């Protein structure tokens, strides 16, 4: 369970450009939930993910994971139980290392990075199996550097690598936004499969309203640092893209756009 309590976050504090993003923001995400988060630019979606992961500091409030306060825990330590896939496919892999080396380094997460061999030969069969599940033929290119792969292939690897070792939370930061529609579809299906298989608690920020409606079991729409829609269960299942669009239009009118 992930709890955000009374979160406060300001930007440019102490200057004339001071902007309050979150003020007394509260959110609880339960074990096994797959939350889709939508909202216009600047509504606080990515900031929310960054606060959870510890990438940006908090100005007030507390963050708890399974009742343990992680507010002061540095970003890298939180990653022990968090897997994150970014919008930019290059963020999740090492371009100058081979596919095999990338798989091996991801597999070492949670273990000691000591002087043992970086690639355990006995695990190669397992890596091949995982890669072939992507259906991209990467299992036959183990010695190829990841830098020469396409964005979609890299994103598929990033997804695989971030969920290879046991984690509790999967954070998806518009992870299909930089891909072509066909590849985006493939990555989204793959995401759903992995989330279900590993029973991961997932938070997915997306601009694709159809994905938000089709996937996951909870839907949140954010606006100016607040959750203006929060539906789960049957209510979420009954939500249509049109409903979200309507809400978007209302917000826009309100803002004067």
């Amino acid at each position: 369970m992930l709890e955000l309590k009374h979160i406060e976050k300001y930007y440019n504090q102490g200057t004339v450009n001071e902007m309050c993003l979150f003020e007394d923001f509260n959110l609880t995400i339960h074990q096994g939930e797959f939350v889709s988060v939508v909202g216009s630019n600047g509504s606080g979606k990515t900031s929310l993910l960054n606060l959870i992961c510890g990438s940006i500091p908090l100005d007030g409030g507390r963050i708890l994971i399974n009742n343990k306060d992680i507010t002061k825990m540095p970003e890298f330590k939180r990653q022990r139980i968090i897997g994150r896939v970014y919008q930019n496919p290059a963020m999740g892999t090492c371009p100058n290392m081979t596919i095999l080396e990338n798989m091996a380094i991801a597999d070492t997460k949670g273990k000691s990075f000591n002087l043992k061999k970086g690639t355990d030969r006995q695990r190669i069969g397992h890596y091949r199996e995982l890669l072939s599940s992507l259906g991209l033929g990467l299992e036959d290119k183990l010695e190829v550097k990841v830098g020469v792969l396409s964005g979609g292939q890299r994103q598929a690897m990033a997804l695989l690598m971030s969920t290879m070792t046991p984690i509790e939370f999967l954070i998806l930061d518009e992870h299909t936004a930089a891909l072509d529609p066909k590849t985006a579809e493939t990555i989204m299906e793959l995401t759903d499969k992995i989330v279900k298989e590993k029973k991961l608690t997932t938070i997915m920020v997306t601009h694709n309203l159809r994905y938000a409606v089709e996937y996951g079991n909870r839907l949140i729409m954010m606006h100016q640092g607040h959750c203006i829609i929060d539906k789960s269960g049957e209510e979420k299942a009954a939500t249509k893209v049109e409903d979200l669009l309507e809400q978007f239009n209302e917000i826009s009118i309100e803002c004067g756009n």
Partner: protein
Amino acid sequence: MSIILGVINEGFIYALMALGVYITYSILDFPDLSVDSTFPMGAAVTATLILAGVPPFLTLFLAFAAGALAGTVTGLIHVKLKVRDLLSGIIVMTGLYSINLAITGNKANLPIFSQDTIFENPFIDGLPSAVSEYSTVLILFLIVLVVKVLLDLYLQTRSGYLLRAAGDNEALVTALAKDKGTVKILGLALANGLTALSGAVYCQQKGFFEISIGTGTMVMGLASVIIGTRVFARFGKLKATTAVILGTIVYKACVAMAMAAGLQTLYLKLITALLFLIILVISERKRRR
């Protein structure tokens, strides 16, 4: 013949340093200027210790340790105090000048001609003259080979993978639940350890320590790394470390040729800098094509 041998000797000595620069510049993407002072630091440590009666071979390890410590300081300044990479190196480089003098007991020049070194000792003297003629280059070759193999092996370990990842994609290091700062510090320690080792070997081979021998070390190292990784790496399956060693020898040969063309020694550093500029411009042009 003696010129060629001289070039190869120098190439091997500086190759140790170039391997260090390869770690910081190519792997970590960190322009580390502290090498300009860790090179003479290695020389200062080895000269002082040899004069104090410590076995010459052992001093090499101690020089490495001293360099690694200095590299750690550069890393700490950058990571913990959040000073920019180039400035962290400059701060350590400047400060070490005094430290190096303190090591030698405030002597800017410390000759060890009469002392035993790894190149000149009763064992080497006892060898048949056909061998002893080439003993220096053989010893240098051995040291470079051992360091290269060890570095290659290290880069294939889990820790080595993490080091490569830190230069390639910092975000991934964080994603692996590792502190990228610690990895950088480790890389800088290793690189400056190798540079100090290079300085120590230089000192034992030349027979003296001199405070200014480090000037231009980074430029020399970068030039060697760029020649190696951009020129030699094209030839098939050559390992990057091997390419860097070859790059150093080629660079030294270029400098030697320029000097042989009749330039005075006082222009050595100017040649060093100009050659680096030429290499940089050519390699950038090639990359853009």
